[in-house]
């Protein structure tokens, strides 16, 4: 099988899977659907590995062109796919984690009547995600970009009978669209300024002082804000938890939301050349990391906590990108994919066990009921909290170190965010698995460990979360920072451009020690509060302190958006419809005919019927006509 075919089949197989399942979903059994869904992704995964190995062995990036998609005037967009180190890594994550989540879904969704539909959506999602990362030009990336948004919409609203889920889906899609607009405008500006939209042609043309670079990068970043849930376009992500949990794991933790990171990394050269945008990315990243982390502190829905944690971690990735540490960002993205997927799937397992109970106030003491889940979940929590030697430690530390090089304040904020992360994650862990159980008798009676199809992915992911950090062990520990080297070709030009600090090893040790110490302290605090004191978050309706209340209500951002965007939009619509349209323009148009009628009645009144009057008019006419002879 040639490389080109393989490249084509990587995205095509999930698409085939989707088509197959979608067209026959009413006729095939759920087993068949699951089988098709998993197999296609798995084969893609195999192909991805093959390509990855080739790249690892020093092959040049592969580009495979298939046909011209759009061409108009001097605009041309080929359907051509690119596999280079960056996308290859992404492929592995997408197909690998995607496959695991497919497998997990077999167990998780087995009871659901729409399981066939579910698999078709998942496959479609994988297809679009692959398009996003494999597209060799901006437009194909945009295809994937929009496509994953669509799948996200479909999957969030998977249980479409529930209108609040649909609301969440709509919100996700529309908010994404805001970002998409930025992205597409950015793409168009790239085309206008560089005459092409193919990476291979654009990047060499980008030089210091290329026109509109700042604008382009900011617009692109707006896209990233939408997709990767950064301030101010992040509010959809927590709501997106309405979807089935595997979806949250796959789309809203591991893959889709990292598209923004991928995109910025892909365009690293553009960003490196526009310091303003870099700063913006950094600031937004920092703000989001901290902001989301604080919100997560007070959430009681197991998935919501994880969602805000995702937002926060994504912020951290953007911090990495914003300081020019692209490889670190990608590294963290990879590890995050492992442990966040793990956490979500673990949460899913808990939810599954408790019959769709998601409120941690109704949990507690579950570790003895569902030990596998507990154990893997614990690994996930340790990983995300940055406890060595779990994956999260390396990647997070990498970012913090790079941030410190760049700006100490940035480091401080990022560190604070990661400390908060440790706190709320352990809070989550303690409230869920430790202490006395708060679930009802009835629920407890049925609690059981999930089937193998669910626990197996958990275990695999746990393993990955444990050892995943090894791919980026810094030189400090004698590691080669393999990931940085592997992706170096992609970031080569940027690295040359950006100032190269090198922290001394001692500083790095100090920072690392500092963080670990603080993390342990924070964990201790969490332990004291939730285990020793057995504190349980206040139930719904209890009075809260103002600060707590604000955080609990997510700083009222949703309400603010509702007040300044959604309501005015509807008001404008109403205004246009009623005032301008109906009583303005249309009224004016009708007025023409009405006034015509009035005039007509008036002139018909001149037709009095009195012949004397007629003659009178006639004589006046004669007088005028004759008088005309004087003026001719």
């Amino acid at each position, binding site marked *: 099988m040639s490389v080109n075919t393989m490249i084509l089949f990587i995205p095509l197989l999930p698409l085939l899977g989707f088509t197959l399942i979608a067209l026959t979903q009413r006729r095939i059994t759920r087993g068949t659907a699951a089988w098709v869904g998993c197999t296609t992704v798995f084969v893609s995964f195999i192909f991805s590995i093959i390509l990855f190995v080739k790249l690892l062995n020093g092959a040049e990036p592969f580009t495979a062109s298939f046909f011209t998609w759009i061409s*108009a*005037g*001097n605009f041309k967009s080929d359907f051509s796919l690119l596999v280079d180190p960056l996308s290859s890594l992404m492929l592995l994550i997408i197909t690998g984690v995607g496959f695991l989540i497919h497998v997990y879904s077999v167990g998780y969704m087995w009871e659901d009547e729409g399981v066939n539909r579910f698999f078709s959506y998942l496959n479609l999602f994988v297809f679009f995600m692959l398009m996003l990362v494999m597209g060799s030009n901006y437009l194909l990336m*945009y*295809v994937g970009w929009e496509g994953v948004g669509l799948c996200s919409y479909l999957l969030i609203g998977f249980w479409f009978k529930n209108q609040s889920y649909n609301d969440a889906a709509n919100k996700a899609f*529309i908010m994404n*669209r805001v970002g998409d607009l930025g992205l597409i405008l950015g793409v168009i500006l790239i085309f206008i300024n560089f005459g092409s939209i193919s990476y291979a042609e654009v990047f060499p043309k980008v030089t210091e002082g290329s026109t509109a670079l700042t604008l382009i990068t900011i617009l692109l970043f707006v896209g990233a804000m939408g997709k990767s849930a950064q301030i101010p376009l992040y509010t959809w992500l927590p709501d997106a938890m309405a979807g089935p949990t595997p979806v949250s794991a796959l789309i809203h933790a591991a893959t889709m939301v990292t598209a923004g990171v991928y995109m910025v990394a892909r365009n690293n050269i553009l960003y490196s050349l526009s310091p303003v945008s870099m700063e913006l990315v950094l600031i937004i990243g920092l703000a989001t990391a901290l902001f989301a982390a604080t919100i997560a502190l007070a959430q009681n829905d197991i998935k919501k906590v994880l969602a805000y944690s995702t937002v926060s971690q994504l912020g951290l990735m953007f911090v990495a990108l914003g300081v020019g540490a692209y490889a670190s960002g990608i590294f963290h993205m990879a590890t995050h994919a492992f442990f966040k997927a793990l956490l979500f799937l673990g949460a899913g397992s808990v939810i599954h066990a408790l019959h769709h109970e998601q409120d941690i106030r109704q949990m507690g003491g579950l570790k003895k009921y569902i030990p596998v889940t507990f154990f893997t979940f614990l690994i996930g929590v340790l990983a995300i909290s940055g406890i060595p030697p779990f994956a999260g430690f390396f990647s997070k530390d990498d970012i913090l170190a790079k941030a410190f090089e760049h700006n100490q304040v940035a480091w401080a904020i990022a560190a604070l965010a990661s400390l908060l992360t440790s706190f709320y994650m352990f809070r989550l862990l303690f409230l869920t698995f430790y202490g006395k159980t708060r679930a009802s008798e009835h629920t407890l009676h049925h609690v059981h460990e999930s089937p193998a199809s669910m626990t197996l992915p958990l275990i695999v992911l746990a393993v990955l979360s444990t050892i995943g950090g090894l791919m980026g062990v810094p030189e400090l520990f004698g590691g080669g920072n393999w990931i940085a080297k592997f992706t170096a070709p992609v970031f080569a030009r940027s690295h040359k451009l950006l100032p190269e600090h090198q922290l001394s090893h001692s500083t790095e040790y100090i920072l690392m020690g500092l963080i670990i110490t603080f993390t342990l302290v924070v964990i201790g605090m969490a332990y004291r509060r939730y285990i020793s004191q057995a504190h349980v978050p206040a139930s719904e309706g209890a009075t809260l302190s103002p600060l707590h209340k604000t955080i609990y209500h997510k700083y009222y951002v949703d309400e603010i958006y509702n007040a300044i965007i959604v309501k005015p939009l509807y008001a404008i619509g109403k205004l246009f419809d009623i005032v301008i349209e109906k009583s303005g323009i249309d009224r004016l148009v009708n007025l023409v005919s009405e006034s015509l009628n009035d005039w007509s009645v008036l002139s018909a009144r001149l037709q009095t019927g009195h012949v004397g009057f007629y003659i009178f008019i006639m004589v006046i006419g004669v007088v005028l006509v004759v008088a005309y002879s004087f003026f001719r």
Partner: protein
Amino acid sequence: MWLIRFLDNMLTVALIIVPIAAAVLIMALSRQVAKNIALFATLAELVISLVALYQFNSAMGTQYVFTKSWISSLGIAFSVGMDGISLLLVLLTTVLMPGIILSTFNDNSKPASFYSLMLLMQGALVGVFVAQDGFLFYLFWEIALIPIYFICLNWGGENRGKITLKFFIYTLTGSLLMLVALIFLYSKTPGTHTFALSALYEAGRSLDLPHQTFVFACMFLAFAIKMPVFPLHTWQPDTYTVAPVQGTLLLSAIMLKMGVYGVIRWLIPMVPLAVKEWGMTALILSVIGIIYASCIAIVQKDFKRLIAYSSIAHVGLISAGTLTLTTIGLQGAMIQMISHGVVVFGLFYIVEIVFARTQTREIGRLGGIRNVAPALSTSFFIILLSSVALPFTSGFVGEFLLINSLVQYQLWVGGIAGLTIILGAVYMFRTFQKTMSGETNTLTSQITDLATHEKLVLYPIVLLILLLGVFPKPLLDISATAVNNLLSIYSDLSASVK
């Protein structure tokens, strides 16, 4: 050989004659066979147009030309032919017409005259798109108005007399002004006055700016009303709502393309100076229309009205893109016209399907249709995706190219026009949610899924949407040469200025 060449030249004529002949035939026959003959005629038309497509040489300009002097004393000839732009729109017409006829197949109440009018309409529409003579163009333009008027008047809904009259007078106002402009140009043609397209181009280009402006104003008004462009659009939602579904389909899917086509063929190459001078104004009006109509669509409660406003928004984008006078804009307009035709056809048809089953178009009263009619809702969803310009659907290609051209024109104009990406999603997804998702209610729980003839109409549409989304290039290639030819005048113009 000789015969084949002759037949080749007659292709365009056949495209006009076949439906008209069928229309006359139908009048003479009984109502039972009418719909079958109509379907047959439209299918025959489709075959002819496909033959034309097959033999079309996209590197050349106008083909299948047929010219015969008609009213020689007035310099009017029956001159028809197709270049890429015409061919695309003819294809749109011929592809959609069988669908429109098919959509009546469960309805036996329509008399023969209905089908006759539909076919007449098709003949006239094709005529508009292929006319190479100013007078002929005007003639078909007007003739196209009559059947649709009667269709709406005879089989329309409540209050149809007043609304259709408004529609008629509105459009007639425009077209009469266009007539004045055409006559004006005619009187400026060199030598023996003639309505031949090239002569009119020549006459138009030789005018000074004030006169060109006059011509531009008259003709653009006609086209803008047809499209319709803000603020000349108020006839449209009412008419779409009141018209029977086939009328709405004709109006929205094909007829409003006449307006854009007019701008492309009869305005842009005709009065370049005025287009340069006033294009900006027209463009901004179009862009205002996009936002304006989108905002109104957001608050619409009537399903059909909502689609009508969305159509205004989309057409605003097309018109704005056209007026950028760039190849990308024009190509985008072409493909978007095709796409919009297909999409809006699908949307209105779905509205009708829902209406036929529930007797309501009020969005608030629907809901949960996905539960009972998955094929319907899935079709709707895919069509909707094209309407909101999701990549790999037909809507995306056009919309991207159009926004691209607008950004090239002015960044902020492009940005504002781009808002349609967001607003479109807002109202379309809201509609989908309100009508299709959720629990069923008493009204919607009895809905049956698509019947065979409905599938026959909708599935090809869905297929077309996806096909055009993934492989738009063949279509773009068809019109490429024609578009470049049209725009060459502008490069000449700027060259001469330099």
